[in-house]
């Protein structure tokens, strides 16, 4: 279980994370939602130790250090692979550094997405790069897979295929923390939704509870964010002088 307690992060005078408390038990698929600049990426980077922060983040009760960091993998839309290396060379690099690297999963996913294995990543399309970034994170052998808008730039068919494959291959002990703006698209795929706004967790709900209450994820998000549905019509009215 990853546990965040009173995690605070400032960029100069700007507060990026404000006393965040969050539990990520094993075996959950958690969606992390929030507007641009809400603190999603910062939160993920703090978990990975890529940014300094105040407060505590533990993995199964222990601080996250080089001893246990291999239990967490990361896929980001910024991409963390080496553009000059081919997928095969990445596989070798991962094998060397992550003893639990799954060759079977790697080969299976590479074949599924029909990605070339010997071509340097810099020659891939954005969609292929995203796919490969996610493949690496899934094959590392980590129990916690953190994904920061991994499908930005992929077409809808591609993404849907990916969700299906992902659900099919995940082991019961594998946890996914997925940050995305594609709320409706992932609503059937995630088991829990965490909402972050201006560095604070403002909502945390299981999709099962939402289903039981007859509410949808997008409605929950809109309600939690106090989304004003009339703001579009009001703006258009102000701009055009016409009433809708």
């Amino acid at each position, binding site marked *: 279980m990853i546990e965040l307690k009173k995690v605070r992060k400032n960029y100069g005078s700007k507060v990026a994370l404000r006393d965040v408390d969050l539990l990520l038990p094993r075996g959950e698929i958690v969606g992390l939602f929030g507007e641009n600049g809400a603190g999603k990426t910062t939160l993920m980077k703090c978990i*990975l*130790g*890529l940014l300094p922060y105040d407060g505590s983040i533990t993995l199964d009760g222990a601080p996250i250090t*080089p*001893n246990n*960091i*291999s239990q*967490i993998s*990361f896929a*980001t839309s*910024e*991409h*963390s*692979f*080496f*553009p*000059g*290396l081919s997928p095969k*060379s990445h596989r070798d*690099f991962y094998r060397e*550094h*992550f003893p639990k690297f799954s060759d079977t999963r790697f080969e299976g996913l590479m074949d599924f997405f029909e990605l070339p294995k010997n071509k*340097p*990543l*810099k020659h891939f399309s954005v969609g292929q790069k995203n796919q490969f970034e996610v493949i690496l994170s899934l094959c590392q052998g980590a129990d916690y897979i953190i994904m920061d808008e991994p499908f930005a730039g992929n077409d809808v068919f591609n993404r849907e295929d990916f969700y299906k494959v992902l659900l099919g291959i995940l082991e019961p002990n594998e946890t996914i923390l997925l940050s995305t703006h594609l709320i409706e698209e992932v609503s059937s795929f995630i088991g829990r939704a965490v909402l972050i706004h201006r560095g604070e967790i403002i909502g945390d709900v299981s999709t099962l509870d939402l289903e039981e209450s007859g509410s949808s994820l997008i409605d929950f998000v809109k309600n939690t964010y106090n989304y004003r549905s009339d703001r579009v019509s009001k703006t258009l009215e102000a701009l055009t002088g016409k009433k809708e």
Partner: protein
Amino acid sequence: MRKPDLSRFAPPGFNVNAEIHFFIIGMASSLILSLTFIPGYIANRKSLYITFSSEKILMDGAKMADFSELLGFTLYGFLILAICMLGMIIFHYIYHYKDSKSIYLMKRLPNPSELHKRCLVLPITAFFVCIVSAIVMLLVYFCIYMTFTPEQCITPDQWQKIWRALP
């Protein structure tokens, strides 16, 4: 003999061969530049003599130019190359931010020294090769100077004068 795999000491995907070629060319150029000491030395040594009936006679009171003066800028190639190698360290770190953020992967490897190993080992080794080469050439040229220059033409404290000539 099997060629050592130096790519293990460079950032993954980095063109290590280009870097090695640059270093070899730099070393060769530095060596050629340093060899200009020899003709300078020969010309100075020649000026100590006069030729009389095809016989070379050492001039009375003739003094050889100081070693540091003859040395001049001949070893600067090695020093410039050494500084370039330190610059290569920065280039290696920046590489992990170029076209992707592979720095994220390097920073979360279970072996935290991997990033530094791949950024530092080759440039620092090359830096020391440059410095050692400069020292070796300095000693070789100093030996040539002291061995082949007539003793009475050498002014005292030649070794100390090298260090005094340094900025």
